[in-house]
């Protein structure tokens, strides 16, 4: 038993952190947020050059052929940097869908260009507020044509293709569509965190094809979401740790009543509690990464645990970050709100904590 990353994986993590620090990723995040760009092209091409985008793509398709533990390490750094890039959409969702169920021809068509960063993929599972992704899907797929709408779709306006769920003759199916084809319209949505844009996708008689077998969509989606949940949990973990570090530094430098605010127990105890929460989320993320890379039978439970723990750790850290900073934490100028926005975005993307809690109990009951 060894509950830690290897030296090589830690080295990869250091290199990733250095690259993102050099790029001053928080300023880049702010730039994208303020200018409403779709994403940072510099960071994206850097990530492609470093092999991150094809981390788990086999080398026959031009990938780096790393494993999921390496991808998890990268996800933590991408999260830590609040990197404004379509990493989760393209890598955890679209790439995973193709790796999981794509035909050899589909893999050949998309994976090499995904690995090189030449195209961006995304996934679209939701249509209506409040509904779970598998609930009453109204988008329809028949005879190679797609009709309906999906929202919100992460990076929907930046993406070149989308993997989505659609109702078909044999039940829910997973379908892939290029976004530059006739009958597809992508429009930007106003968004809570403009550093990670969302879109509405409309399909009118748009050309599309199945990924995997018809009627298999529900199972495939669940599988994709479990994998993405672990990787997203690492992003949340990285971001929570960064928010925590910045808050700790602020509390040490800020003086009140003649002493650093970090010397008051009211602040120390709050930081201690957050540290515990983040450390426990870290442990659960490691468990998730291990299940993802080595033991699929444990992934169902591990993904729920990692996802819930990391969502809650990042959410509470981002809330306390503003509180501990005091007034300046509420200004546009300070970076607190970048974390606050991202925390809520990540905790509701892929299904909110409550939906993962119900899944966790379902899965434990199924095991018992």
């Amino acid at each position: 038993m060894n509950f830690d990353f290897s030296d090589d994986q830690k080295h990869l993590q250091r290199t990733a952190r250095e690259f993102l620090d050099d790029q001053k990723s928080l300023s880049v995040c702010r730039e994208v947020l303020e200018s409403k760009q779709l994403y940072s092209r510099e960071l994206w091409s850097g990530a492609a050059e470093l092999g991150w985008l094809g981390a788990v793509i086999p080398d026959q398709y031009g990938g780096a052929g790393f494993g999921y533990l390496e991808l998890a390490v990268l996800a933590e750094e991408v999260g830590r940097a609040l990197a404004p890039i379509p990493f989760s959409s393209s890598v955890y969702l679209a790439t995973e869908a193709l790796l999981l169920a794509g035909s050899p021809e589909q893999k050949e068509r998309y994976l090499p260009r995904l690995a090189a960063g030449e195209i961006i993929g995304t996934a679209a599972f939701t249509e209506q507020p409040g509904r779970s992704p598998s609930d009453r899907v109204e988008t329809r797929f028949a005879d190679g044509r797609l009709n309906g709408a999906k929202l919100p779709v992460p990076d929907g306006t930046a993406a070149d293709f989308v993997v989505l769920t659609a109702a078909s003759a044999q039940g829910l199916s997973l379908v892939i569509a290029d976004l530059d084809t006739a009958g597809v319209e992508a429009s930007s949505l106003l968004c809570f965190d403009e550093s990670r844009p969302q879109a509405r996708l409309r399909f009118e008689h748009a050309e599309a094809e199945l990924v995997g077998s018809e009627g298999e969509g529900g199972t495939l989606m669940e599988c994709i979401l479990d994998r993405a949940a672990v990787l997203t949990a690492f992003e949340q973990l990285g971001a929570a740790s960064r928010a925590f570090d910045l808050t700790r530094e602020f509390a040490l430098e800020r003086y009140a009543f003649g002493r650093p605010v970090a010397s008051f127990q009211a602040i120390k105890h709050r930081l201690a509690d957050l540290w515990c929460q983040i450390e426990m989320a870290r442990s659960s993320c490691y468990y998730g990464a291990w299940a993802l890379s080595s033991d699929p039978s444990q992934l169902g439970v591990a993904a729920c645990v990692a996802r819930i723990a990391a969502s809650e750790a990042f959410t509470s850290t981002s809330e306390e970050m503003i509180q501990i900073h005091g007034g300046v934490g509420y200004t546009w100028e300070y970076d607190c709100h970048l974390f606050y926005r991202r925390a809520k975005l990540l905790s509701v993307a892929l299904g909110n904590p409550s939906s993962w809690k119900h899944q966790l109990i379902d899965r434990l009951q199924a095991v018992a």
Partner: protein
Amino acid sequence: MDFNDTPEEATFRVEVRAWLEANAARKRPGDPQPDRVGELIDEATLQEAKEWQTKKADAGWACIRWPPQYGGRGATPMQEVIWNQEESNFRTPSNPFMIGHGMCGPTIMAHGTPEQQQQWLPKLLSGEEVWCQLFSEPGAGSDLAGLRTTAVRDGDAWVVNGQKIWTTGAQFCDWGILIARHDPDAVKHAGLTFFVVDMRSPGIEIRPITQINGGQGFNEVFFNDVRIPDAFRLGEVGDGWRVAITTLMNERASVGALARGAELDELMDLAAKLELAGGRAIDDRAVREKLADFIVAWKGVELTAQRTMSALSQGKMPGPEASLLKLVGVRLLQEISGFGMELLGTAGITSDEQLVPQSARWQERYLALPGLRIAGGTDEVLRNIIAERILQLPAEARVDKGVAFKDVPTGPPSK
């Protein structure tokens, strides 16, 4: 990263399991509950526990991480994890050695002379002698270094006077570890010295304390001119605080380890069987979310304990991280127990096992857990430790710094 056993670990596990199968009975559902937290064990239970410990010691399965010269096998932290996992599946007597093995032993190993180690550790390991801890005082709990029990040098001995409190099992213990003040003119932490005391010494008086759950596991221990040979001093004169820190670090790990997670299985089981107004409890959305919260938090504690073990086996020292396990784990068990009572509805207030299955257990735990939140460092002290030692935040401003201990205020000024 590998959450499975390595081939060597798997072989070790087989060996452990085989020995346990041959020497103990496997636990079965419906087995009687182990003793209550903070309950004084009777003579028969003590004997049974000693026999089990001796049996383990004879076969080389007692305190397996200790070096062979004291009876251990110099096992790795991971091997100890495996041993604990396997042993927890078997019916074993209650463990009156936790304080001795978990706190006294490591302290003697870290600070004792080779003679002292040889004198005490083998019999501590084998269960022949039972140990207790004499730290807290009525006026010194979270502020342990504010203790007032005195030790005055007299030839080759020390004469000890004062009162200790919260001493588990003092009645049946052979030895105790004691921290006392040898110099009231020194500043608080510098005036302390650490001793091992023979609990049968003349002048020691033991009085049980009745706890909120009715148990009497803890005692007040009075010292009236108790003589302790200087040869029983652990560490240098004035070095008592440093020695005590070793004990306290180990104490947090031990108390944290009390939490085993069986409570969660019981809660899931209860929720699956219990009928509420709208159907089974486990189908109720609010109940499910609560259960999920507990499970996620519990996994977090458990996996963090394992991660700490990995760090240990890579040669890193046990540190203040154990504070997390106790702080979060014990609080969580209190919440789980309270929720177990509430889940039963109004019937949760009865302790009649015949009427309400499991009810009494939740109540019992709910009454035991406030004690565990205080023992070995209160939640508040643990948060300070995490904040100051791990997060390197500044210490609280203090009024007793640099002041001779005898001049430190101990109550409101007299009017």
